[in-house]
């Protein structure tokens, strides 16, 4: 272990730093402070140093460079180390240069707006490319990849049944429980059934399914395509003559569009079941009465409202998932960022469209 002595330097002759033992990175912090504390003119005595590494040499070198320190007692090895670090004294920046506060704010705002514009145009372009892809497939149906589509059906649809079913069942219970507590204040508990029936069939079944599919499959689409982009698989496909839109994007889109209404219907059934279980156990309304009452209060247009929205949501989810995946460039960090963006973007678009649908269906009289 190094022992560092520094005799008092207040005698007017400057300070002398006597380094002993190991002059290495291990004590770099304290060595620097001790050297800095000594007055000029500074002398560094290396006679008793047993081991010096480049960091130790750098500490001595910067004292020579900045304060004109004199070095005594350096051995041949130590001298050559000092010369080496002097050779490498090329200051480099550690972080990229950043402009000052206000300018940076403006620059960030500008970048953000430009990116939003580019994303919108890009999404539109991607939408066009998929339409062209669909068109090509219709003209040459033999290029349709049935296996890929069936496999996506399995991943997007069948494997989501469990989690979507459970989620919907629980949501049905929550709606029934919260609704009955509020309606009990008016003595109108029986209207809980109206509440469950209309809200799950018309809105929540489809909307919650869309959110689940966006989180489950939209993110997976973005991550899969993004990874394939980084590993140059997509470039390889292009050079072989396989269109990535046809081979990767269209099967995912078909899967999302076909599976969304089926999953949404499944979610509606399970939510109704959950609500039914709750009203049976908590309010004492038997299942037969529950089903009869549902038939009376839920018009068939509610079901159509729910089911018409579902494929559109599926399409939006697949579109933004695949689009963000194809935007990945450079490093693996991008995959994570793009996946997040895909999920946020698709849920946002789904909710915007849901609002549009709500107004539309009300206006055509499907109330």
């Amino acid at each position, binding site marked *: 272990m190094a022992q560092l002595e520094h005799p008092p330097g207040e005698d007017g002759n400057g300070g002398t730093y006597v380094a002993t033992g190991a002059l*290495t990175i291990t004590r*770099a*912090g304290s060595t620097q402070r001790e050297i800095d504390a000594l007055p000029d003119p500074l002398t560094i005595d290396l006679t008793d140093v047993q081991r010096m590494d480049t*960091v130790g040499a750098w500490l001595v070198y910067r004292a020579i460079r900045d304060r004109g320190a004199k070095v005594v007692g350096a051995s041949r090895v130590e001298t050559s*180390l000092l010369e080496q670090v002097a050779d490498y004294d*090329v200051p480099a920046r550690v972080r*990229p240069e950043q402009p000052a506060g206000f300018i940076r704010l403006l620059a960030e705002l500008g970048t953000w707006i430009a990116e939003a514009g580019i994303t919108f145009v890009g999404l539109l372009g991607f939408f066009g490319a998929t339409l062209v892809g669909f068109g090509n497939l219709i003209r040459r149906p033999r290029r349709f990849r049935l296996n890929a589509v069936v496999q996506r059906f399995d991943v997007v649809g069948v494997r989501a049944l469990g989690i979507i079913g459970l989620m919907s069942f629980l949501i049905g219970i929550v709606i029934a429980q919260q609704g009955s507590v509020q309606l009990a204040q008016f003595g109108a508990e029986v209207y809980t059934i109206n509440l469950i029936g209309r809200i799950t069939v018309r809105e929540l079944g489809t909307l919650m399914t869309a959110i689940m599919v966006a989180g489950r499959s939209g993110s997976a689409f973005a991550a899969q395509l993004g990874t394939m982009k980084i590993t140059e698989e997509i470039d390889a496909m292009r050079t072989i003559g396989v269109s990535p839109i046809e081979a990767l994007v269209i099967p995912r889109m078909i899967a999302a569009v076909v599976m969304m209404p089926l999953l949404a219907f499944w979610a509606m059934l399970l939510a109704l079941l959950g609500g039914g279980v709750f009203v049976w156990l908590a309010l004492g309304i038997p299942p037969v009465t529950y089903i009869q009452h549902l038939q009376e209060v839920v018009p068939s247009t509610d079901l159509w409202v729910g089911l018409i929205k579902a494929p559109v949501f599926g399409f939006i989810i697949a579109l933004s998932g695949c689009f963000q995946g194809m935007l990945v460039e450079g*490093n693996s960090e991008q995959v994570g960022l793009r996946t997040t963006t895909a999920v946020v973007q698709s849920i946002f678009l789904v909710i915007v469209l849901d609002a549009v649908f709500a107004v539309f269906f009300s206006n055509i009289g499907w109330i």
Partner: protein
Amino acid sequence: MIPKDCDPVITVRGLRNSFGDAVIHDGIDLTLCRGEILGVVGGSGTGKSVLLRSIIGLQTPDAGEIEVLGENMVGRSEDEAKNIRRRWGILFQNGALFSTLTVAENVEVSIREYFPFIRPPLLDEIASYKIAMSGLRPDAGPKYPSELSGGMIKRAALARALALDPELLFLDEPTAGLDPIAAAGFDELIKSLQQRLDLTVFLITHDLDTLYAICDRVAVIADRKIIAVGTIPELLALDHPWIQEYFRGPRGRAAAVTAEEHTTA
């Protein structure tokens, strides 16, 4: 075949590694002496990288003893291993630079981790000269790994490996993916750093030119064992078919000729 005046830095005895049914190593013995550059060669899939990972403690072997810098590596706790990790530097095959940090910040990571009391200005100076030392231009300091070329990534990774002034340097295929000029430059850089900083180097490579140019001894992995260790002339004297094919094949002969020209010139 171990030199007489050998001061062992790494000692591997009876190492056995397997993944499921596939046995990768069965009874590996290897000694690395202080101050030498040992090259490890072997066909693809013979477990060169697995050997490296076992030595540095990323892979727990099924059996065998591994001693690095006088300390037993198998079955150590994280805390104990920290003291040894401070004394070595590792250059991974693909650089393994942290993608969210700049090159200079990558170099600073391990210094910050072990020596939190070094002030930021000194830390930045240390990072600067390490970057210069590994042959990068100073404008590479504030760049992110995604902005670097393959050769620059290797150099940045070398700068990070050298951050703590290690005694022992592990290099996993340092010249793979570099053009011949960059590869020759990298060989020279390693050799000169090794001499200047008194390093011991464990080097995995496929590059015959690297073997001829900088390795003091070469270890050959085949058939799940180290089949031979020695200088290249010593290996050439053996009549193992893989060694003969490796060094006497067209590429091996070309590298030998280049090396000869280099020494006579």
